[in-house]
């Protein structure tokens, strides 16, 4: 597993020339949601986080919890996300939304305007990006399968465009549950209509693997995670990372995380780092991601 992740990392990160396409919208749909996943290289299709409504819908309901995330990119570029998961009988449900307030470099919506450079330096025109969704999942023939309905919106000044979309996903635990595999097709839907023409959604096929949890002595755990995604233009992104957590007593943990990635957008850079602390049902996570012109910060609070 470790070797596979290393190979994946090499395949994805090493050729990470700035080949990112940067012409998809909304912008927020190309950014990670939770700090825990971000600290390990970013979201991947096997991240069983509370943000399943915006990630892999197969994990909807897998962690009954509520999460709030706040992000700070460049000066005056802020984002946030909120999500909740629960179950009703055999059906898992997740609901979530992610929002980014930024400054666009041009006064209108237009293709090729979403490279992510605005994350590093706020543009002069008020802009916002929103995605929200509700996902359901269930078990079918040994697989966990899920589907999410999404609302995607991009706004620059007074120009706003929105569209309904969907994501589908599947997951399976293998090696007696020690490794989790996830596959998702995200943001399937029509283009966003903009005055300058249609803007494609960031549709991607994503594959990820997490685990196994490796015990190191009595009090340390090592957890690995990695994945790749292919966008509709063939651009390959991905990332991998790990978490080392110290659990001095049941219910309390302290984690450090590190990851590397090949991001979809131009401004984000390969390195991500993170910290986490949990006390019973409450967890707080922090992630730092390398950015052009500095770093970005994300904090998530999760209540299980």
């Amino acid at each position, binding site marked *: 597993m470790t070797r596979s992740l290393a190979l994946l990392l090499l395949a994805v990160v090493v050729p990470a020339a700035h080949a990112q396409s940067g012409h998809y919208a909304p912008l927020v749909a190309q950014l990670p949601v939770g700090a825990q996943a971000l600290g390990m290289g970013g979201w991947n299709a096997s991240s069983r986080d509370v943000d399943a409504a915006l990630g892999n819908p197969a994990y909807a309901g897998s962690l009954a919890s509520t999460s709030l995330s706040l992000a700070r990119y460049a000066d005056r570029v802020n984002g946030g996300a909120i999500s909740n998961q629960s179950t009703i009988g055999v059906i898992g449900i997740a609901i979530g939304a992610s929002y980014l307030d930024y400054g666009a470099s041009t006064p209108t919506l237009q293709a090729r305007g979403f490279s992510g450079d605005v994350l590093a330096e706020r543009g002069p025109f008020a802009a916002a990006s929103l995605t929200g969704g509700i996902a359901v999942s269930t078990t079918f023939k040994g697989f966990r399968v899920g589907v999410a309905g999404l609302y995607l919106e991009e706004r620059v000044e007074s120009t706003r465009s929105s569209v309904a979309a969907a994501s589908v996903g599947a997951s399976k635990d293998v090696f*007696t549950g020690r490794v989790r595999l996830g596959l998702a097709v995200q943001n399937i839907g029509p283009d966003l209509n903009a005055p300058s023409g249609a803007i494609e959604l960031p549709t991607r096929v994503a594959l990820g693997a997490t685990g196994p949890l490796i*015990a190191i002595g*009595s009090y340390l755990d090592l957890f690995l995670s990695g994945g790749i995604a292919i966008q509709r233009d063939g651009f390959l992104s991905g990332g991998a990372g790990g978490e080392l957590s110290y659990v*001095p*007593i*049941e*219910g*309390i943990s*302290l984690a450090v995380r590190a990851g590397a990635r090949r991001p979809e957008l131009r401004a984000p850079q390969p390195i991500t780092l993170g910290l986490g602390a949990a006390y019973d049902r409450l967890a707080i996570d922090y992630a730092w991601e390398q950015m052009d012109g500095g770093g970005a910060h994300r904090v998530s609070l999760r209540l299980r």
Partner: protein
Amino acid sequence: MRNSSRVHIVAVLAAAVLSACVTAPLKLSTDDSAVMLSRQLLSVPDPSHRGTFNVRSLYYGSGTDKQRAEYRDSVAIKTRTVDGSKLAGPPDPEQGAIRKEYWGFDFTKLPVNGRVWYPDGPGPFPLVLIVHGNHNMKEFSDPGYQYLGELLASRGFILASVDENFLNGFMRNENDARGWMLLKHLEAWRTFNDSVDSPLKGKVDMGRIALMGHSRGGEAVAVAGLFNRLSHYPDDANVKFDFNFGIRSLVAIAPVDGQYRPAEKPTPLDNYNYLLMHGSHDGDVSNFSGLTQYERIRFTDGQPWFKSAVYVYRANHGQWNTVWGSLDGGPRSRRALDLRGFMTQAEQRRFAEVYIAAFLEATLHDRAEYLPLFRDHRVAGAWLPKTMYITRFQDSGFQTVANFEEDVDVTTASVPGAVLRGDSLSTWKESAVPFRYRNANMSHNAVTLAWNNRIAGDDTTRRGTPASYALTLTDSLRRALQMDARSVLVFSLAPTEAKPGPRQPPKDTTKKADSAAKRPAKPPRKPKEAAPDTVPMDLTVEVTDADGRTGRVALSAYGPVRRPLDSFVFRRAGRDKLRFATTYEIVLQTYSIPMADFARAAPGLDADRIRTVRWLFDRTEAGTVYLDNVGVSRMRPEFLVAENGR
């Protein structure tokens, strides 16, 4: 120092401080072993000492084992595999594939592997099989009983530790297969004993067999005992059985119960000697599950069987096996489980050595001088590790008078001709004895009796007649029970922490009711939540003969009368109260009081004509007890040889 290093150090320190804050202080019940184990009344040799035989060892097995070099390269006797696929299978196809890849065989070709310690002598020697329970299948469990193998072999037993690691791991509903495998091993042993070229030829006494099992293996020995006398597998009659081995004794070490239910019923078991042991600090099987099987064992054929259960304070689940050790919850146990209260592994093993060796000596070597140990652990104070024990006991001479199972009438007993009466009790009810796990019970009833002899009111010195609970027998029942001066009164009892409030004063019926002068009654005070009662308890047991003469003894002379023993399993403060209904297990202690003792206490008492037995709550002002399995026994005299405490 760099800032990042400082942050890391501060974070780790913060986590350490936080974990220290939420770690529960070590809480143990006050140890009374200095008193309870102060005497050694058995004068026979300590059974945990090695015997006179030199010990030899060998392996038997498939000779092809992929993972176990000893069963591949070192087997002295090759065995044929057995098809267990009708009794067990992988939980899912993926598991099946993983298991087959790892072990090199599936459930149709289970190996009959064992490691043997045997006496260097001509024999024949009794045969004892021991089987481990569930554990990481890759951390092999069968070597963990070597300490027992070497001890027992030196004392003239053959011990085989059976390999069932291939049934470990992520398995469910396989305990029937675990038991069945033991019987397949016995079939192999019959061959070993009969084969001309076997190194064990003629060494095995196949009429004196004991099966021992730990954890799931502890349930498996009961299943094996059941299957041994059945002609068909209860869950598939196409599987025919023809075992009928000379199994005399079963030993269950921290067993589970009910994971296998033949024909959807609890495993019934008749006519075996049965020894059960369980630790109070078991972090895996955290309730005394084996007591349900203990209760189900019946003696019906008139042979001299007995059963004994010992609850061992500060023993855990794994230390009975040297491979398993102290980590009952796996490698990460230290995070969750409080290991500080455990007795040492050496002490726990010594307890196992004493009890198991004595049990096998008594039941397979007919060394009756060890029998008192199983009735009352206090007879062997010098042999036992200094901790607290609770002993349950019943012999085949026992006849039940009241076990509180028969109906919902609290005044009737289990046999016609017996009447139960309570006097001045604040609680008198029959109900199931609870397990410490929430919403779980021991599947058998007891009577709960609570009392407070203090009269409510401002005068705190005012006391009423001591509360009591009485069993009255008719002459015909006494005759039917053959109850006389040689009989032994036997019952089991456990105090709880509950303490009822003072009793209401009796109504003064001489005063006239005067409604005009009557003041409105004060609303009753809301009772405060009482702290657990920790005052040592005792009570009087009294018998009355047909002529009204009474004889009395103090219960504490016949065994410990203790409040429940606190057993905090988890490290996190409050976690035990979250997981369990109580922080202790209710375990009833069995008391055996010879009728002759009452006569000694009250000269003139006619112990041949006892009419009433009364539990008189006169030695402790207030308390609550469970009482169960009241009866009389024509106990073998050997059980009573070492009279203790009087």
